């Protein structure tokens, strides 16, 4: 353990009124509630565990097959299968607390009403959450999902209504599939959001040339993994430069060098997703890697490092 890691403050950051111990989060939908991954390492070490997105009611998700591997990437069309917000409140929250996880709760609604109802439900436990992430960018559902990003005007009411109900830092998660990230970030800020998280997956597809059937029952899915890293990094850099809201960067991060690249491009924190599937201890390794990098580069706090590439270019 080196200086920067020992002195907790070196890696810490705040989003809204929440303090995070380090900038390494895990991405919604790739880590469930963390219980499985705790078999591999102590998940309380993470800056935050972002939960799978929860909707008001249980959602059964899309028909299988739901995943398909592509060159350095994967397509998924899970379709937000989840047990509903009550499951989080009644079962999962308590397990995550036991493991000492710092929690970002990801929620999903197909309209403002559903979001409001979820917000009302989590009101009572809001103190247990570091932040709430609004998934406005799922490519795999018919209603809501990335439709919000196609028509950013709809983002305003969702954010402001939720802000009225709960007093937790709000993160808005956006899609790269429309050229609306900056516009959406401005609207999110105006309505009280505390951070933007980008990117959700990029829409893609694949077909079986023997049967002519799509590889995913849902036809299209979301591309994630190293293949999308340069695109994600570009969106993070472009948004961070605008200094609208803090940006949580994600998309293909697979090693500490990738994480550092997002941080210097302007992300205040980063999220590890698909890489967890390949190496279940990678997020722990990334924390260590960032700390080691900071020591070797002489950075004593994240602030000194975040956005370095913006300043230099």
């Amino acid at each position, binding site marked *: 353990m080196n200086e920067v890691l020992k002195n907790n403050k070196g890696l810490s950051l705040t989003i809204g009124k929440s303090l995070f111990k380090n900038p390494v989060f895990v991405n919604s939908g790739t880590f469930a509630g963390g219980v499985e991954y705790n078999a591999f390492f102590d998940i309380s070490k993470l800056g935050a565990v972002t939960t799978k997105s929860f909707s008001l009611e249980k959602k059964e998700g899309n*028909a*299988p097959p*739901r*995943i398909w591997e592509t060159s350095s990437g994967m397509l998924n069309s899970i379709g937000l299968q989840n047990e509903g917000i009550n499951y989080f409140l009644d079962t999962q929250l308590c397990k995550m607390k036991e493991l000492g996880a710092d929690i970002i709760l990801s929620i999903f609604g197909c309209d403002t009403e559903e979001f409001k109802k979820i917000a009302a439900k989590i009101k009572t436990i809001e103190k247990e959450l570091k932040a709430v992430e609004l998934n406005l960018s799922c490519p795999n559902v018919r209603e809501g999902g990335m439709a919000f990003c196609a028509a950013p005007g709809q983002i305003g009411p969702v954010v402001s209504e939720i802000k009225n109900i709960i007093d937790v830092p709000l993160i808005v998660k956006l899609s790269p599939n429309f050229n609306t990230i900056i516009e959406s970030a401005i609207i999110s800020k105006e309505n009280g959001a505390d951070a933007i998280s980008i990117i959700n997956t990029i829409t893609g597809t694949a077909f079986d040339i023997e049967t002519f059937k799509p590889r995913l029952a849902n036809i299209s899915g979301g591309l994630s*993994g190293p293949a999308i890293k340069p695109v994600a990094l570009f969106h993070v850099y472009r948004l961070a430069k605008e200094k609208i809201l803090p940006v949580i960067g994600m998309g293909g991060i697979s090693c500490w060098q990738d994480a550092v690249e997002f941080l210097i491009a302007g992300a205040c924190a980063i999220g590890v997703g698909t890489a967890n599937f390949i190496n279940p201890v990678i997020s722990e390794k990334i924390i260590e890697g960032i700390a080691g990098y900071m020591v070797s580069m002489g950075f004593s706090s994240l602030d000194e490092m975040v956005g370095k590439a913006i300043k230099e270019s």
Partner: protein
Amino acid sequence: MKLLSGEILANKKYGSSLYKLEVFSPYICRNAIPGQFVEVKCSTEDATDPLLRRPFGIYEIDKRFNVFSLLYIVRGKGTAFLSRMEKGQNLDFIGPLGNGLKFDLDDGKKYILIGGGIGIAPLCLAAAHLAEKEKEILFIAGFKDNVFFSWEKDIAKITQNYRIFTEDGSFGEKGLPTSYLAANIKKLNNSIIIACGPSDMLRVIQEILVNAHGFTALSLLEERMACGIGACMGCVIKIKEADGTVVYKKVCSDGPVFNLMEVIFE
């Protein structure tokens, strides 16, 4: 389950595209049960293609030497990579994964293991386990052709009570394992059937058993996987539960062993 690294002791060619990979791993040998699998990294440490780990059922466990093995068919990039690995290199894998087969050894039942193609792999570990406990087993294997020819010596070490069928008659008897099952269904009753193979085969077995009595039928299923540990919801299949409700279950963590009669094939 753990993230493990084990030395490869052998990577033997069994047939044109069939290999057996032997790996040193006290942890797997101590903890794995039949029906469980491992997820193997099939690319060099720093390359991102192929990206995802590949799941393989555990084929053999030799507790004396702390060696387990996989039996695999070369299909695409990942298995091609695997086939090029050599003795002395380390295999990067996660395991043991999945629910596995839990046997009630006092139930006095016979076991019928019925496998199609590479589906025989995880069944062999089950057969070895049952044979060791001196349970009565019948192993029925079906193949397209004679690629599995040299596998016979492995099964013969476990039991003499096996039948091999090939579609083209090039190895064993000509015919389908499911036809054999259908023809002998009466005389086989009061058995526990464990099936693993292509979904067409599993579906036929399901149809045969719908009208038969005195069977418990388990199946080992396959679905494409990402995490392999129950976190991503990528590997679901449709299950009709006892009460009639239809739900998605994860092959990696709810399975790969499912009650065959509850599986909905589409």
